[in-house]
């Protein structure tokens, strides 16, 4: 690449930057780039705060209205929508300070912490599904974990997006069960992330059930998948896995360890008293 090429690249880059004149925002830097738009960090001059600004093709402007309807703690709130002088649509949203899920997992969070994150993602999905919205492209890159542990699911339900291969359900027409497939794929991704210890078979079974090729074999709703994760965390049997007897006994033992110790203490006391008496 010679000097003229680099100058040309720079000019292209500058030309592609959105013209924010006439808006209350001041461009800071590019944060990310996706199939249907670019996200920038910007400053809201009026309220003197940093925001994330997503600039879209005008054809996809409905995305903002769609997300604005989804008021949930795990869904990034939309502040404002508008149109740039060049006709492109944009919307301003909360700028989340934190890490993308794939980067967050590099820090080897505990299994409990990873399940907390998947629970928050699942709750956001369940909420959106009750509002008739599906995500369509759930993947680690679309989940942010904030610096205080808050979880946000981003890039909701744009019709032009058909999902990311590793997280996309095999069926052609996407619906709620396609999101459940992606949630299962996300769970699997989190279980096998580098630095994590061997995934418990019950959790692997939950992910596998959610990722069944046949949509009817998946969990019918996101809440059902979360309920199975709850069962795992409470030491109960999960629906997705018919566990072997030895595993069931071990789970019963660890779940009821205190009771078993007390019963053993009672038996020891009784035997000791009986043998002391008859000696």
């Amino acid at each position, binding site marked *: 690449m010679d000097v003229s090429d680099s100058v040309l690249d720079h000019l292209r880059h500058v030309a592609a930057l959105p013209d924010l004149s006439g808006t209350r925002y001041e461009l800071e830097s590019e944060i990310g780039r996706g199939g249907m738009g670019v996200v920038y960090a910007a400053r809201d001059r009026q309220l003197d705060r940093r925001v994330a600004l997503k600039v879209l093709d005008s054809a996809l402007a409905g995305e903002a209205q769609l997300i604005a309807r989804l008021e949930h703690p795990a869904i990034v709130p939309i502040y404002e929508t508008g149109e740039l002088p060049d006709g492109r649509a944009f919307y301003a949203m909360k700028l989340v300070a934190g890490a993308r899920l794939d980067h967050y997992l590099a820090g080897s969070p505990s299994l409990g912490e990873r399940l907390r994150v998947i629970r928050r993602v699942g709750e956001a999905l369940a909420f959106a599904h009750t509002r008739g919205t599906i995500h369509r492209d759930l993947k680690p890159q679309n989940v942010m974990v904030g610096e205080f542990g808050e979880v946000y699911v981003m890039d909701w339900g744009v019709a032009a997006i058909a999902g990311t291969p590793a997280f996309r359900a095999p069926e052609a027409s996407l619906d709620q069960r396609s999101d459940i497939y992606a949630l299962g794929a996300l769970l699997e991704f989190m279980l096998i992330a580098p630095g994590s210890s061997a995934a418990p078979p019950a959790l692997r079974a939950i992910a596998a059930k959610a990722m069944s090729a046949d949509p009817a074999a998946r969990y019918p709703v996101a809440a059902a998948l979360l309920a199975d994760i709850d069962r795992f965390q409470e030491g109960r049997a999960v629906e997705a896995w018919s566990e072997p007897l030895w595993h069931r006994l071990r789970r019963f033992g660890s779940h009821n360890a205190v009771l078993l110790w*007390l*019963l053993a203490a009672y038996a020891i006391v009784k035997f000791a*008293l009986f043998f002391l008496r008859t000696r």
Partner: protein
Amino acid sequence: MNKILVGLLFGLLLGALDGATAAFYPETRNLMTGIMVGSSIKGMLVGLLSGWFARKVQSTKWGIAMGAALGLLFAFGVAAMQHEHYLEIMLPGFVTGAIIGFLTQRMGAAKLAEKREA
């Protein structure tokens, strides 16, 4: 089911079972009915108070401690009435109380949940 009812039921069951173990001693076989009734009532009293405590304090550790203390206290009362067999009555009573205390913490709805259900 509320925690007091859980305590009463498990107190009755475990008290009766504890009383039934007296059948291993030949000298008590003629007194089995009285022992079982007395032991069941003792268990129910421990269960009642442990269940009441579990509604106030949600802690497995303190539930076990309270159940054990109540079991020991009531077992001492029973042994004191007979003026003998203190160890044979108080030691199992202590452990049975601990089990009842544990069960009242683990099972049954706490007061807040009961109100919500209502």
